[in-house]
């Protein structure tokens, strides 16, 4: 199952709830303001690191670049993908949950 999160983890608890309620081996894609959840050195970094042992996490490159961020800003093991990859993930996964 693919989960997308598009809200900043510092403003809303969407990411936190998503990670709490996500089945093992799911895929989590951070988009729009959700990309801030992939930053290292934040107050929620430990929560994200912990979740990375259960789920695969991606972040959408164009949204990252728009915010002045790149792979050096990110927690290790979070992969940057483009729009084509996003489409592929959407096709590969039978269901999608959007955590708004």
């Amino acid at each position: 199952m693919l989960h997308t999160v598009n809200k900043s983890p510092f403003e809303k608890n969407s990411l936190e709830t998503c990670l709490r309620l996500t089945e093992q081996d799911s895929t989590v894609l951070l988009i729009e303001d959700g990309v801030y959840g992939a930053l290292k050195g934040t107050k929620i970094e430990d929560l994200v690191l912990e979740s990375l042992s259960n789920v695969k996490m991606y972040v959408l490159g164009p949204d990252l670049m728009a915010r002045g961020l790149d792979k050096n800003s990110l927690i290790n093991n979070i992969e940057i993908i483009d729009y084509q990859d996003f489409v592929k993930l959407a096709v590969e996964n039978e269901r999608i949950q959007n955590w708004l």
Partner: protein
Amino acid sequence: MEEETQSGVIKKFLYVNRRAPHGTIYAHEALEVVLIGAAFEQDVSMAFIDDGVFQLKKDQNTDGIDTKNFSKTFSALEMYDVEKLYVEKESLDERGIKEDDLAVDVKVISSSEMKKLITESEVILNF
């Protein structure tokens, strides 16, 4: 701290920015309002708190999301005599962002200094 000029009264304006850029229109709209305020020769300060600090992140490139890269406007604020940009240190720390990561010169201040800034302002607009 009011002084009379030909055009009227000058007040201490504080624009409080607490939203990340791009995800919503707030940050962009705030900048538009700041520029209008500056045209009326008011005493303008901007505060960046919570996700608002992300507005100032350098190297923003919005080509991939087809929106206006308004972050460049921050460098032009000086020309409108908007020179007082205050960033709350606690907000930077929580987000792993350092002063060096910011695109413009700002004054990084503590929560207690921010409290004082807000208290001393006469007109406060929140975005």
